């Protein structure tokens, strides 16, 4: 399935999932789908890239041109609403800036997929779509910190290494992590590509067990 085939329901569910507004069972289902559906995963990642642009999170990790087009899309959003012909009308309203942000997000998504290439889009759009990054960080509700950012494949290796150097030195100085031994070191390995995505039934079951244990 590609983004042009994606149903409005799928997009709406994805948007809700990103906002942490789906229940646990629906969330688990989406996680499994995301793990197996490349295009849905690309959409998910573009959503986060755009959110990062809008929130200035890790903006240095996102292509400047991409952020510029996000802002342009926000500017055009009023016009799209005025003629009430937006094909993005399925997206549910959100408060304040989030409305514009989400609509802009989908506008860019559509441009990126070539679905609604306008006169100003064109060849730039496809490379952006191709920049879709691997799925890393599904919203798992209770298991996920509120501030969880999405890792971008384009993230500079040097930044990761420097961040890990900070953490490595921190752990070396603090010794045993307040008695918890090696546990403090685990995040250094977890951010590698070794982790299983949550498509494995065992993973889902383990996560659900963790949730129910609360």
């Amino acid at each position, binding site marked *: 399935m590609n983004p042009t085939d994606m149903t409005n329901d799928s997009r709406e569910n994805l948007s809700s999932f990103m906002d942490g507004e789906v229940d646990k069972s629906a969330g688990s289902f989406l996680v499994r789908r995301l793990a197996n559906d490349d295009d849905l995963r690309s959409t998910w990642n573009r959503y986060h890239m755009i959110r990062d642009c809008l929130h*200035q*999170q*890790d903006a*240095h990790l996102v292509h400047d041109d991409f952020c510029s087009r996000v802002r342009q899309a926000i500017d055009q959003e009023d016009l799209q609403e005025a003629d009430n012909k937006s094909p993005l009308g399925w997206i549910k309203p959100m408060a304040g800036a989030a409305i514009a942000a989400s609509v802009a997000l989908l506008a860019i998504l559509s441009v990126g997929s070539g679905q609604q290439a306008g006169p100003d889009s064109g060849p730039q759009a496809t490379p952006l779509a191709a920049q879709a990054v691997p799925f*890393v*960080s*599904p*919203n*798992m509700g*209770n*298991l996920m*910190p509120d*501030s*969880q*950012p999405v890792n971008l494949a384009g993230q*500079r290796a*040097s*930044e990761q*290494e*420097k*961040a*890990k*150097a*900070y*953490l*490595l*030195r*921190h*752990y*070396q*100085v*603090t010794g*045993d992590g*307040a*008695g*918890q*031994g*090696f*546990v*403090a*070191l*685990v*995040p*250094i*390995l*977890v*951010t*590698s*590509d*070794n*982790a*299983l*995505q*949550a498509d494995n039934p065992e*993973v889902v079951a*383990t*996560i659900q067990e963790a*949730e129910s*244990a*609360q």
Partner: protein
Amino acid sequence: MKLLAFCASAVLLLGLSLQTIAGDDPQHWLERMGAAMNQMSYQGTFIYIAGGRMETMRITHVIDENGSRERLSSVSGPRSEVVRDQSGMRWISGEDEAVMADPIVNWPMFLDQSIRGLSAHSGYYQLKLGDQKRIAERIGQRLDIVAIDNYRYGYSLWLESDSGLLLQWQLNDQNGEILAKLEFTELKMGSEVDMSELKRGHSETRQIASGLPVGAAKPVSERSNWKAYWLPPGFRMTANRAPSQNTLGIIFQHQVYSDGIASVSLYVEPLNVEAGAGLGLRELGTSHIFSRKTNDVLVTVVGDVPALTVEKIAESVSQNQP
């Protein structure tokens, strides 16, 4: 025979008495865990879940006449491991054998005392024992460490009932929601440990300069050039390294602040430092990193604490007035 029976009874009573003490006192369980994790040899496989991802890892921790050695490695996927021994720590990642080495940090803490457990008595955490459950074919005693504010995380620990070794670990936010979970599926102790696992993964590697300073440095007082002027209640400076040059000639300052359970590191380095550390907030697993520029230096705060904490600490950092 009577002497033997007496000795056996004495040992039994002593054991029962120690178990009773541990059973009644959460603080004692916390101390037992710290001792067990550092002074015992153990080896096992565990799963780690955070952010909807799961990874299986293996830990080998050995204490013998050669000191403490540790190897933490991923079980599947691209090779990734952290090795710690008397020469320092090395992070090895990927099939291209990239490695980041950090020689052992050898500087005394100017606060030469352990503050572990301090916060358990000072009101920043509440300790409470929970029910036992079976984990990795062993009995685990639950110990909850509940943070009283949003500046630190809480923990739920399941400790092996005989040794105090960690069997399961959960990182919780203030609402008790699980941010990450680690659980052993298999655990060996003492003579059961396969020492050969420590040697695996050692090979010729390409070293990546970490940019961090190496070698010893003199301890300094709290009157260093830079410091954090805001800390969460209960935090205090536990280590401070005078500004020193690393092998790349970079002047670097590193301080550690802790409440006895949670800790953060403050790094101050020149803005022209190599490697783009980026600015603002980043996450590395459950750790948060916040960097900002000020007065031609890059201030970075790192720790396994909420984003709010690293950000507020970093924003408060400034140079001491002469």
